[in-house]
């Protein structure tokens, strides 16, 4: 065994915590002064590591550690028991009853009447107008007269209503219905609005005719009406 091997084995023996070296190692160390010095240095180094670790790790435990844990446990337990079990069950039952009650009330509420008699739905006549042949062309769409008219979400209310209908786009229905209701409730407002319209000097002939696809819409002042 040469010195290099001996030194490697010394380190391994010290790192593994051996108290007594193997005989061949001890023999070489006894004969070689350099290896003997190396062994002493390494022994001191490992002893220093051990004592340093013990010093770093076996630090005195602070006296406040366990009382602190107990205090935090007490606080946690007190917080948990602030709402007792029976109380928690009652709160849960109360919330359940409230939710059920609100749900039932919502279901039993009668459907609100439409605030206006304005129904936004295409009718058969409207479809027929748009499907008329123009300038000898063929009809673009055949209208089935037996087909049931389209009903929207308020179809039931629309079918019960027997008065005149105004065709508007769905997004304008509410506003127009609101205007109609307001005018019906306030006749003075209607008169004022009509007067204002009559007084205005808008020349209707200045407005060009509207061309919707292939359907000619005549002017308001023309005789085709």
């Amino acid at each position, binding site marked *: 065994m040469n010195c290099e091997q001996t030194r490697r084995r010394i380190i391994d023996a010290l790192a*593994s915590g051996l108290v007594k070296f193997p005989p061949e190692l001890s023999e070489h160390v006894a004969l070689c002064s350099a290896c003997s010095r190396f062994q002493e240095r390494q022994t001191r180094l490992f002893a220093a590591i051990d004592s340093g670790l013990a010093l770093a790790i*076996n630090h005195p435990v602070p006296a406040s*550690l366990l009382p602190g844990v107990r205090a935090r446990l007490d606080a946690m337990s007190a917080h948990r028991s602030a709402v007792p079990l029976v109380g928690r069950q009652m709160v849960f039952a109360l919330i359940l009853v409230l939710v059920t009650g609100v749900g039932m009330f919502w279901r039993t509420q009668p459907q609100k009447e439409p605030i206006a008699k304005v129904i936004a739905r295409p009718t058969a006549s409207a479809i027929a107008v748009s499907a008329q042949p123009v300038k000898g062309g063929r009809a673009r769409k055949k209208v089935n007269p037996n087909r049931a008219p389209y009903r929207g979400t308020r179809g039931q209310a629309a079918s019960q209503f027997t008065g005149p209908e105004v065709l508007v786009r769905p997004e304008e229905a509410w506003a127009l219905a609101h205007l109609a209701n307001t005018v019906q409730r306030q006749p003075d407002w209607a008169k004022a609005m009509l007067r204002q319209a009559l007084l205005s000097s808008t020349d209707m002939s200045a407005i060009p005719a509207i061309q919707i696809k292939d359907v000619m819409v005549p002017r308001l002042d023309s005789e085709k009406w």
Partner: protein
Amino acid sequence: MQEFVLNPSARLLRADPAEEADTASAKLEFEQHLKECGPLAFRVARAILRNDADAEDVAQEALLRAYRKVGSLRDLSRFRAWIVRVAFRLAIDGWRSARRRERRETHWCSPESLPSPRNAEDIVASHEFQCRLERELDELPDHSRLAMILSAIHGYTLEEVAAILEIPVGTVKSRLFFARKRLAEKLR
């Protein structure tokens, strides 16, 4: 020593006798575990964090978590293993975040810029050696580091360390061998 009582008036009034007895025995059991595992958790955390206040916080947090699991950790060895792992994990997390913060704030005086030591003999008993030892301990892999820390705690044999880590004794020995050899190489 302060008695361990968890809000008796509020709980005893509504608990039935069997549940009350069960709770009392669980508390007693936890109190016994607490006396032994509290210092252990603190030392593990202190070995990582090197700060008493932070280590105390970590140990308390680990013990509180352990209290919630005391029902499933009745066996002391399992309880001890569990709490060591939790304390180690919490401490490692805290240490890593602190190290990142420290590096960000004081990178100019990092350990790499310190002068290299003269030799082992000159610094063996010095404070510098202790600092270097702790720094090199931090650089060990987690499993070797935990084995090193537990084996350095007074009163724990290799068998107990193996039981805590839930690994064979031979594995503990090999981890210690690797860790000590590496520390010696770095500190030589």
